[in-house]
């Protein structure tokens, strides 16, 4: 079974600064997907960014980018120019590429605080 570990229960960053959230995972599979989801106080789960394991290029979405290190099984999220609206719980998630293995496995989450 796959496991996802987020070692930072809480992170704090000044507005307009850059912050990196860590995520490591354990799997014996070679093909899979990785995601970061954001959960603000409304508790809606919002997709931030996705990465396919076979792609070496790191995914980017505007101010959000990842550092995907497949050999190290590491998938960190970098948020540039942090904004107050970025304050939320961030979950790292893993999904197998195998057919019939649909469910996401989530880490415990990192609570991101933005200091004005």
């Amino acid at each position: 079974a796959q496991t996802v570990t987020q070692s930072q229960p809480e992170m704090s960053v000044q507005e307009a600064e850059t912050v990196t959230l860590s995520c490591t995972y354990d799997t014996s599979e070679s093909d899979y997907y990785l995601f970061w989801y954001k959960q603000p106080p409304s508790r809606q789960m919002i997709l931030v960014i996705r990465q396919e394991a076979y792609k070496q290029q790191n995914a980017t979405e505007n101010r959000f980018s990842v550092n995907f290190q497949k050999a190290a099984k590491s998938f960190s999220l970098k948020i540039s120019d942090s904004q107050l609206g970025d304050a939320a719980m961030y979950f790292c998630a893993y999904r197998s590429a195998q057919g019939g293995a649909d469910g996401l496995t989530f880490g415990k989450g990192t609570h991101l605080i933005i200091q004005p």
Partner: protein
Amino acid sequence: AAGVIQSPRHLIKEKRETATLKCYPIPRHDTVYWYQQGPGQDPQFLISFYEKMQSDKGSIPDRFSAQQFSDYHSELNMSSLELGDSALYFCASSLRQGAEQFPAKTQYFGPGTRLLVL
């Protein structure tokens, strides 16, 4: 763009009662997933359906069942409710093969149903 719709948004039940949660996926999405998120917890995968057939099964209790209908909406049926079933229940949907707006196997979540069991 249309999103995943869940109903009801809030539900209060007594112990031992039953509850039915409904999910309407994003139009043309072929896969539906159910998750349970307890207070202060990460979401736990319960079950998924692809083209109306059960696709994957997670930690769904035997007291719960689910199905996907011909119009692709899904229902999660919960019986003999326990206090510990109080949680936020998410439905998500995805496209198995993917399309321009929706990359393959990327799950988009609904707003959730908050279930409180008293």
